[in-house]
């Protein structure tokens, strides 16, 4: 079921790349249309899975990845349609396509653990996935900023200079994406703590719940990620960091997010394996 969105995302990715090279508006519109179509089909897939298990599918890691990709695509489309700036598509789409391969190959089945049947849990996961999508955008914007900054600073105005937006726009969008992501990350972590306390009272012997502590790599890295983004916010506002440093930090932050979301989620965590 996740293959069709993947195919559409891949097609959109190719057209975004052609648009980036050629910069004609017809190809640009075709790219956006394909991505919108992909997002629409993806919405349908997630809607079907929600009807199947009676909740948004994200307890299984593959399905969580699929939901994350969906949110990232929607966030990007929002950014593109509000700024009318398509040059970022070619940088976002590889992340979207690369991640969507996972649910397309390993669809996974959603196992409805009764422990998860709490509104707190759903708020916890949706907030975090939305935060990750924002950080994904911020990370890619940071990368684009660094590319543009390098060309202008080194006085080598080449391929990217003409195609990418101004440093100021990239910086503002990056700052907003980090702020939105940080807010949702904070809410997600707090709600997670509340939910764990509540769930432990109901199922004191659940092995996942027993493993919920700072010793668990997933929780540790999550807090580290929160610390990185908190510092990014602090540095921008109080230390007057801006531009390249903030861009680099948001790219590093997204590295932590992906580490936690993919490697640790699949292979290491002991506390977050409800499947």
């Amino acid at each position, binding site marked *: 079921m996740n293959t069709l969105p993947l195919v559409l995302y891949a097609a959109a990715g190719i057209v975004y790349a052609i648009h980036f090279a050629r910069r*004609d*508006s017809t190809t640009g519109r075709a790219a956006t249309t394909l991505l919108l179509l992909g997002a629409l089909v993806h919405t349908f897939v997630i809607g079907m899975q929600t009807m199947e298990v009676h909740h948004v599918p994200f307890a299984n890691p593959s399905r969580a990845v699929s939901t994350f990709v969906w949110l990232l695509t929607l966030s990007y489309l929002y950014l593109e349609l509000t700024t009318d700036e398509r040059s970022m598509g070619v940088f976002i789409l590889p992340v979207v396509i690369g991640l969507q391969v996972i649910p397309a190959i390993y669809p996974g089945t959603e196992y409805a653990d009764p422990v998860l049947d709490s509104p707190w849990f759903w708020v916890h996961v949706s907030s975090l996935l939305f935060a990750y999508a924002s950080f994904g955008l911020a990370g890619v914007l940071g990368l684009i900023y660094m590319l*543009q900054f390098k060309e*202008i*600073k080194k*006085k080598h*105005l080449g391929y990217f*200079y*003409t195609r990418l*937006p*101004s*440093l*100021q*726009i990239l910086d503002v969008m990056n700052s907003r994406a980090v702020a939105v992501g940080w807010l949702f990350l904070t809410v997600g972590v707090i709600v997670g703590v509340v939910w764990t306390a509540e769930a432990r009272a109901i199922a004191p012997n659940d092995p996942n719940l027993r493993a919920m502590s700072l010793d668990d790599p997933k929780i540790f890295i999550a807090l580290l990620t929160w610390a990185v983004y908190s510092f990014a916010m602090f540095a921008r506002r109080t230390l*007057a*960091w*801006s*531009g*390249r*440093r903030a861009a680099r930090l948001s790219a590093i932050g997204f590295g932590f997010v992906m580490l936690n979301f993919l490697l640790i989620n699949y292979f290491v965590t002991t506390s977050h394996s409800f499947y």
Partner: protein
Amino acid sequence: MHLFLLGVSHRTAPIDLRERLDFSSRDLSAAAEAIAARPSMSESVVLSTCNRSEIYVASSDPAIAREELVAFLSDYHHVAAQLFQPHLFALENSAAVAHLFRVAAGLDSLVVGEPQILGQVKDAYQVAAAKRCVGPVLSNVFRWSFGVGKRVRSETALGEGAVSVSFAAVALARKIFGRLQARRVLVVGAGDISSLTAQHLRAQGVGDIVITSRTLAHAEALAHDVGGLAVPWDGMMNALGSADIVITATGSQRPIITRAQLVAAQGHRRSTPLFIIDIAVPRDVDPSVGEIEQVFLYNVDDLQSIVEENLSRRAAEVEHAESIVNDEVTKFMAWQRSRSAVPTIVALRQRFEAIRVSELQRLENKLGVLPPDARARVDDVTRLIVEKLLIEPTEQLKGLPDEETQAAYTEAINRLFKLQQDEEPLDFSRGKRSDPSKRP
């Protein structure tokens, strides 16, 4: 009816002559009207920019049109004809179409690909259209040329990249700051390039422009020109602290802005980007200033090399743009041919219809006895037969490959069916140049 063009451009005439033959924007409509009122010319558009004065007309006799236009230019500008005649170029029909398309695409400009020309072509057309000086010949070719200009801009990089030092600086400022609306500019030393750059920045809507110079009067003069504020020389460091864009162009033999001075002046603003354009030789800004994280320092050589790179990139696009123009000329001429077949097609249809009607009238006595339904059916059937007979000839006439074949077919049909056409077909067939040596 022929399309005829007479003009001077930077390729054929020196600047002093172009100045004398220039039409100011206020004169354009009156000139177009005066030309179109002449008996040999039915339509006219006058295109006048600093690099060209061109008159496009629709005329039944280009040779007479040329004579009349030369006389008009001589009278209008009070210049003796023999002074400018050797510098004129004249083009007809397809050659004139190709020229207009090249002009609209920016291929004939002094700075190839410059963006203003398409707007100037549109303005010239609109001014003439407002005075009802354009008809089927000029309106079709001009409207088509707007599309050509747009196509060349979107499909090639011909108009990309700044090709003057001051525009390169403004383009860079836009890539750093995005919108320039609230940005503060400091100009240190009032020279030609700094003045030009400040003017371009003003046109982009920058916020304040502060100007300082060792001689306050110079600063005040430039401030007056660009709508800025002149401050005394000793206020420079203060102004530096709040500036986003700095242009330096003094005659100083030593750097006037060092790294330590800049860091001290910026204070808490060191995290905001600062774009410094150092146009002076020797340089006004110590090169180590460029090592500060948020400072983008460009000297005149840096900007010049950007300009040269952009120029060579544009030159590489010329071939592509020329092929688009050629393609559009071919398409336009084919379309024009299909349109010039229209009078023949109309006459042919009228002839067939006349025969049909007269035959029905001849048989009226016999047909009159039929009931109304059957009578109407006969009418329909005969009309359908005529339609079907004409479908293929119509398509064939519209799609003829060249003017000669078309002329031969038209002639044959006229003779075969004894056709008489009221309307004179538009004839864009012979694209001869009256003086090819005047165009490169």
